[in-house]
């Protein structure tokens, strides 16, 4: 499908990134908020690189966000060059993810996988709290140095936004190329009909492991960026409640869509920042909206947008596909 370059989704995304801060400020928020939204957009897209790709829902990916954040923060004290610190964040996150993937992916799928990843994330939280000398324990990690990016002063909010925008663009472009590669095609097949894929010649475990690690890398990158944005890393980022928020955002945006999670991040975080000053029970509102979406619009905002588009074109929309006819369950015993 050849399409003019200017219509390529990534190009459109780049343009959106350029325009985004103006929109955010026009809606009453600050440039700082705009950067914050981007951090979550990256996090959610990273999570979705696993969830929306191979179908594995990890409730523990917040731990990679946290690992990335701590790495970036600690690195910043030695190498005052943000891009290097961020790359380190992603690399460390992937390094941690790899052995975990090797252990967990083979042994668990579905809900079991969600439970175990949730528990592993919590475990890292408790470890982090104890390693006070490295992580600052419960107080978190401070003294994170932004330094200068060549001649650009990053303490300016505007400059920081452009840094975030570049990071977001690179991260999401990476995710895009992964998703739209032959590898990505196999992953999506795994999500649709896992049982059949081995019979097509692919080792589903290896594919899922790789997705796990790559998505961890992107979540780590988001964490690194967050460390520089907030100039502080709290151990809480490792907890399942942090992942929970990312899961919520991803689902609200649309698990089956590529840009859905990023859009969801902007919407949810915007909503939160509007609600927080209004009521201290704001998590209940978010939770209720989320539950409503799960029940009524599991395709998220992207799903709703698709339905709206179909209605507008007055074409009979494709019916929700029947429950995937899965190959008869065959067990691999022994």
């Amino acid at each position: 499908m050849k399409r003019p370059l200017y219509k390529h989704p990534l190009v459109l995304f780049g343009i959106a990134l350029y325009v985004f801060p103006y929109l955010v400020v026009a809606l009453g928020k600050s440039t700082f908020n705009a950067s914050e939204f981007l951090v979550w957009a990256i996090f959610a897209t990273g999570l979705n690189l696993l969830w929306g790709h191979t179908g594995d829902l990890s409730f523990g990916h917040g731990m990679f966000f946290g690992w990335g954040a701590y790495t970036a923060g600690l690195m910043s004290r030695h190498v005052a060059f943000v891009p290097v610190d961020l790359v380190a964040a992603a690399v460390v996150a992937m390094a941690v993810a790899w052995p975990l993937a090797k252990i967990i992916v083979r042994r668990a799928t579905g809900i079991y996988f969600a439970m175990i990843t949730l528990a592993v994330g919590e475990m890292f939280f408790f470890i982090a709290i104890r390693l006070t000398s490295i992580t600052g324990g419960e107080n978190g990690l401070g003294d994170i140095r932004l330094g200068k990016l060549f001649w650009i002063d990053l303490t300016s909010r505007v400059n920081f936004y452009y840094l975030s925008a570049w990071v977001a663009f690179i991260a999401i472009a990476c995710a895009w190329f992964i998703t739209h590669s032959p590898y990505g095609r196999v992953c999506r097949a795994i999500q649709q009909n896992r049982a059949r894929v081995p019979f097509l010649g692919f080792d589903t475990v290896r594919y899922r492991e790789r997705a796990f690690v790559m998505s961890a890398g992107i979540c780590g990158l988001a964490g690194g960026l967050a460390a520089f944005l907030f100039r502080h890393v709290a151990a809480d980022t490792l907890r399942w409640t942090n992942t929970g928020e990312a899961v919520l955002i991803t689902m609200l945006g649309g698990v089956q869509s590529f840009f859905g999670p990023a859009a969801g991040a902007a919407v949810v975080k915007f909503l939160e920042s509007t609600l927080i000053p209004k009521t201290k029970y704001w998590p209940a509102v978010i939770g209720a909206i989320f539950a409503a979406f799960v029940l009524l619009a599991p395709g998220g905002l992207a799903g709703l947008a698709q339905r709206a588009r179909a209605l507008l074109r007055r074409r009979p929309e494709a019916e929700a596909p029947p429950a995937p006819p899965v190959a008869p369950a065959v067990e691999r015993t022994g």
Partner: protein
Amino acid sequence: MNGPAVALRTVGLTKSFRGLEVLRGVDLAVTAGTTHAVIGPNGAGKTTLFNILSGAILPSAGRVELRGRDVTGWAPHQLLKLGLARSFQVTSVFPTLSVEANLTVAAQAKGLDGLGERVDALMDQLGLTAMRHLEAGVLSHGDQRRLDIGITLASEPSIILLDEPTAGMTRAEAQQTMASLERMLGGRTIVLVEHDMDLVMRISSRVSVLHRGILIAEGPPEEVRENPEVREAYLVGVGRE
């Protein structure tokens, strides 16, 4: 010299599930390039045999050889790389992927060179080109079945296990399907599980009969059909068609 090459062989294949013996000492030899049918009443163990041959489950005892090579216990994706593919009784496609994507991912196993052309050719053979962009889940049952077969063939396997390919079809549909299959599969080794006896007689060169986990007869179709033991098995066997 030996006779024609044996593409697929099992030696003393046995499988028990928690004490229930489903297959007992099955010795099967499939000559390369032929169509070999495995028949038997329900519960005879045909699906289990297929599951073992395709790597889905492990045998309790015995060997599986692919072109002389011991592949016992190999995983399905490893067997596919050696050219062994299987189809399923229940249509099993990737529902929200397009027809084209379904076939592309299946054809990928053979490599990325000329992927687009191979997929186009396949769609053409299956008569699915007009529907290439439709989601697999919205196709009619018959079209889905053809797509399913396409997925099995996309990796250009040399040995194909067909698990009741005409299940649930009318006589006419079955004939049509088998005719197009014969066209597409010419020259390859096929192991076929089928209940439609006419079909089996027509297209297979050799038939093995499984009854309660044991091979009770084997030979050319006409011979097997006249075999008194086989007739008895079908009359008193567990369940009837």
